[in-house]
C-alpha cells in the first residue's frame, strides 16, 4: 500500500499520465542518459561499499550462481514459448528471449528502494549479481537464433563479443562496484553526497521520463499482438516467482531473495537491444523494445515488485 504513496512511484504514474495525455515536456536525451549513468555508478558504488563492509560470503557465491542459471535458462524456455504460442519466427523469438534473460537496472533500483521502504533491504552483493546477469542471455539468444533461425556465417564474432562483454553499462556497473569495494566506507564518504543523497530524487525524475517514453512507444507500436502482450506480462510473473523461490532455496535473506526475483522478472532495454541490433539486424527492434520497455517494465514497477516482495516475505522464514 505504502508503495503507492511513495514519490518514486507517484512520479512514475505522473509520467504515464503525461504520456497518455500526449503532454510534451520531455527530459532532454542527454540528461536522461546522464541520469542513467549516474544511477549505475551510484548503485555500483553502494553495493561495493556494502560488500566491503560485510565481507565476501557463501550467499554471495550462491546468489551469483543462481543468477547465472536464471539468465541462461529463462531465454531457452521463452524462446520455445514465443515460437509456439507466441507465433514469432525463430529470429525474433531469440531476440525477445534474450531481453528477458538479461536484466533492467532501473527496475532493480526501483525494487531495492521499495524493499528498503518495506524494511526488507537486499544485500549489497545483489549489485554484483545484477552485473553478472546482464550479458549471458545475449549469448544464449544468439546461439538460439543461429541454430533455429537465420544463420549468418560471415558474422564478425570478435566485434560482437567485445560489444557484448564490454558493454558500457556492464563496465561502469562493475567498475563502480570494484571502486566501492576498494575505497570502502571511509573512501566513499567524501563523494557520498552526490551518489547517495541525489539517488531517490534522480530516480523519481528518471521514472517519470521512462514511463513517458514507454507509453509513447506503446501508442506508436505496430507489430504487437495480444498474445505477445500476454506473454510479456506472464513471463515476468513466472520468472519473478521462480527467482524468489530459488533465492529462498539457496538460503538468501528475504530482501535478497526478492531482489533475485526482481532481476529474473526484469527485461533489458539498454545492453540487449544494442547487441541484438548489431548481431540480429533482421529482428524487429520495434517489437523487442516495445515488449521490454513499454509492457514488462511498467508492469514490474507497478505490480510485479510488490508481488515478488510479498512472495519473498511469505516463503522466506526469517
Amino acid at each position, binding site marked *: 500500500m505504502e508503495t503507492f504513496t511513495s514519490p518514486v512511484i507517484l512520479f512514475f504514474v505522473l509520467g504515464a499520465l503525461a504520456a497518455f495525455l500526449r503532454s510534451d515536456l520531455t527530459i532532454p536525451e542527454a540528461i536522461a542518459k546522464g541520469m542513467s549513468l549516474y544511477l549505475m555508478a551510484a548503485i555500483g558504488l553502494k553495493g561495493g561499499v556494502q560488500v566491503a563492509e560485510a565481507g565476501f560470503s557463501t550467499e554471495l557465491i550462491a546468489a551469483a550462481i543462481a543468477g547465472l542459471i536464471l539468465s541462461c535458462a529463462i531465454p531457452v524456455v521463452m524462446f520455445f514459448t514465443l515460437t509456439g504460442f507466441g507465433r514469432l519466427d525463430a529470429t525474433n523469438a531469440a531476440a525477445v528471449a534474450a531481453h528477458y534473460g538479461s536484466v533492467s537496472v532501473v527496475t532493480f533500483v526501483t525494487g531495492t528502494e521499495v524493499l528498503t521502504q518495506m524494511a526488507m533491504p537486499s544485500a549489497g552483493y545483489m549489485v554484483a549479481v545484477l552485473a553478472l546477469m546482464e550479458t549471458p542471455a545475449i549469448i544464449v539468444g544468439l546461439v538460439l537464433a543461429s541454430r533455429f533461425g537465420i544463420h549468418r556465417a560471415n558474422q564478425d564474432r570478435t566485434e560482437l563479443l567485445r560489444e557484448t562483454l564490454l558493454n558500457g553499462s556492464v563496465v561502469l556497473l562493475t567498475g563502480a562496484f570494484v571502486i566501492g569495494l576498494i575505497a570502502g566506507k571511509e573512501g566513499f564518504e567524501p563523494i557520498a553526497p552526490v551518489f547517495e543523497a541525489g539517488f531517490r530524487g534522480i530516480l523519481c525524475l528518471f521514472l517519470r521520463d521512462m514511463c513517458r517514453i514507454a507509453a509513447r512507444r506503446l501508442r506508436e*507500436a505496430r507489430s504487437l499482438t495480444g498474445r505477445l502482450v500476454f506473454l510479456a506480462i506472464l513471463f515476468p510473473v513466472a520468472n519473478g516467482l521462480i527467482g524468489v523461490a530459488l533465492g529462498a532455496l539457496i538460503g538468501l535473506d528475504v530482501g535478497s531473495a526478492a531482489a533475485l526475483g526482481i532481476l529474473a522478472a526484469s527485461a533489458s532495454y*539498454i545492453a540487449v537491444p544494442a*547487441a541484438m*541490433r548489431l548481431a540480429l539486424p533482421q529482428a524487429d527492434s520495434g517489437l523487442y523494445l516495445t515488449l521490454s520497455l513499454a509492457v514488462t517494465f511498467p508492469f514490474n514497477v507497478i505490480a510485479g515488485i510488490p508481488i515478488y516482495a510479498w512472495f519473498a516475505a511469505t516463503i522466506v522464514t526469517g
Partner: protein
Amino acid sequence: MAKTFSRKRIEVLVDMPLLSRIEKIAEVAGVKHFTILPTRGGGGTEGRWFDDRITGGAGTKVIFSAVTSEESADSMIKVLEPLLDEYGIVVYRSDVEVIRSGKF
C-alpha cells in the same frame, strides 16, 4: 563562374549500433572521408520514432554522409543494396560540386 568538379554525396540513414558496419563498408568501397549527422526523429512504415536515449542508442538513427567520387559511391551502393532490408537503412545519393578534385 567558379571552377568546380562534380562528385557524389552519398547519405545513409542507419541505426546507431550498426554505424560501425557502414563505416567498414565505406572504407572497403574507398570512401575514406565522412561525417556523421544526428537526427531527432522521423516516421515511416514502422511508425513515428524519436531520439530517445533511454535505450542507449539502440533506438537512435544517425546519417552517414560522404562526398566522394562516382565510382566509390557506386561500389558502396552495390555492397549496401543486399543489406537494405536487413539493416533497415535508407540510402540515397545526389550530385554535388567540390572546389578541388584531389581531396574527394
